[in-house]
């Protein structure tokens, strides 16, 4: 059993609670022990980056320092925004020009030998596609889902150090492993409007609208995501998108951990499927009903 520090981050405590419970449930089913970082704090997210990079690094650094003190050498977070901050803190810690300032502001012992990864990286690299396939109890029948990666999981490539920045495939392969049909999705890394949901939701309307539109065009029944902010824009704000774009989208937006969890035989409630805003019960379908045949006369 692997022992990994778990940093859920603030979103997963609130609007993205289903990402938290589905991540924990899937890891449990796969025999990965998650140690929640005791008394973790917010990483500061984009607001800290835009105020002072040292603030971002120190806020994220406190969590890393606690995880190190717990004896973990890997910390996993499902949130790509948090991951950016955690990795930024490690980069600052190892930068000879910033290291002293960072330690002074952090104000607690920290060696910086811990590694930060996303839940997607954990599933794709540490568990692996073949091992996941072997654990599937309820393969999907004929569900069609497009993977949407967003910005930060693979970009910038030198920093993310995971998958391909232009055409990532990790989620594609994981979805295929559990029996989902995965069409090519040209907008898999286009930005959804990020943090502008609150301050400029016209921008989210346009950018998220384009992503949902393309998903429908390639025949998807749902979009799979690995970011709480992307999910919030695509799912919670879908009605706002409809108003901005004069559309009638009704497309489920599910976390990759929920899709995998169902296939592993975990109960939908334990994956928070009922917490999504657009109903995603299609995941539970055993097979699509035949289209009624037109009656032939004579």
């Amino acid at each position, binding site marked *: 059993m692997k022992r990994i520090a778990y940093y859920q981050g603030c979103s997963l*405590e609130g609007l993205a609670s289903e990402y938290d419970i589905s991540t924990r449930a899937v890891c449990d089913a796969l025999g990965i022990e998650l140690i929640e970082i005791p008394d973790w704090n917010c990483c500061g997210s984009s607001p800290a*980056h835009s105020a002072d*990079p040292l603030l971002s690094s*120190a806020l994220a650094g406190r969590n890393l320092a606690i995880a190190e003190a717990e004896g973990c050498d890997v910390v996993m977070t499902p949130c790509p925004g948090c991951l950016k901050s955690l990795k930024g803190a490690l980069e600052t810690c190892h930068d000879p020009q910033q290291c002293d300032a960072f330690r002074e502001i952090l104000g607690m012992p920290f060696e910086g030998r811990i590694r930060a990864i996303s839940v997607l990286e954990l599933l794709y690299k540490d568990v692996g596609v073949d091992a996941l396939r072997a654990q599937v109890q309820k393969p999907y029948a004929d569900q069609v889902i497009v993977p949407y990666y967003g*910005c930060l999981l693979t970009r*910038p490539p030198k920093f993310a150090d995971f998958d391909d920045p232009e055409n990532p495939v990790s989620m594609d392969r994981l979805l295929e492993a559990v029996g989902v049909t995965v069409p090519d999705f040209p907008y898999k890394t286009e*930005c959804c409007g990020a943090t502008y*949901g609150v301050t400029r939701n016209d*921008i989210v309307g346009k950018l998220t609208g384009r992503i949902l539109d393309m998903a429908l065009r390639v025949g998807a029944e749902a979009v799979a995501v690995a970011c709480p902010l992307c999910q919030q824009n695509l799912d919670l704000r879908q009605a706002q998108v409809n108003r901005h774009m004069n559309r009638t989208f009704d497309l489920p937006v599910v976390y990759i951990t929920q899709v995998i969890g169902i296939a592993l035989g975990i109960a939908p409630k334990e994956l928070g499927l009922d917490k999504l805003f657009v109903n995603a019960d299609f995941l539970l379908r055993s097979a699509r009903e035949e289209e009624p045949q037109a009656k032939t006369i004579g």
Partner: protein
Amino acid sequence: MEHIHTLSIQNTYDADFIKRVEEASGQQVSKCYQCGNCSASCNYTYVYDYPVNQIMRLIQLGQREIVLKSRSIWLCASCQACTTRCPCNIEVSHVMESLRIMSREEKMVSLKDIQLFYDEFLRSVKTFGRVFETGLLPVFNMKAKRPFGDMDLAPLVLKKGKLHLLPSRIKGRKEVAGIFERLEAFHKKHEA
């Protein structure tokens, strides 16, 4: 683009500006040769006053005030598409981030609401140790004078049991506040 911008660059030239941007960002903006990959990759050009390739050129031309007062630097979402595709290996997104910080320092922020949202977010972190979504939105709405912003979402969130009425205060919130205080002290020390 709504306006045509006429510049008299000789009148507004700040010889020191590019050096300061390069120092703050650690990026060699002078290497940019205007291929336009960044703007071609950018999803936000349609709301910018200057496309990101023009921001890079304006930095080279020492146009400090135009750059730091631009809407573009505050509407950049840090999606990193420009950085990923720059053939000169300039971390363009990092440059934009440094410009946001400089525009704060020089009191030239164009989009005050975005700065306000970020500031309220950080205030929440400093107070509770974690961000309190339910508290952040009404405070921001009040201060930004948009009392009904996102009110349509409240019944949806309530129905799903995702509306938390109390913040989760962490035990180490004094440690977190200490980070903010030490940062401030650090900058004061280095300014002196």
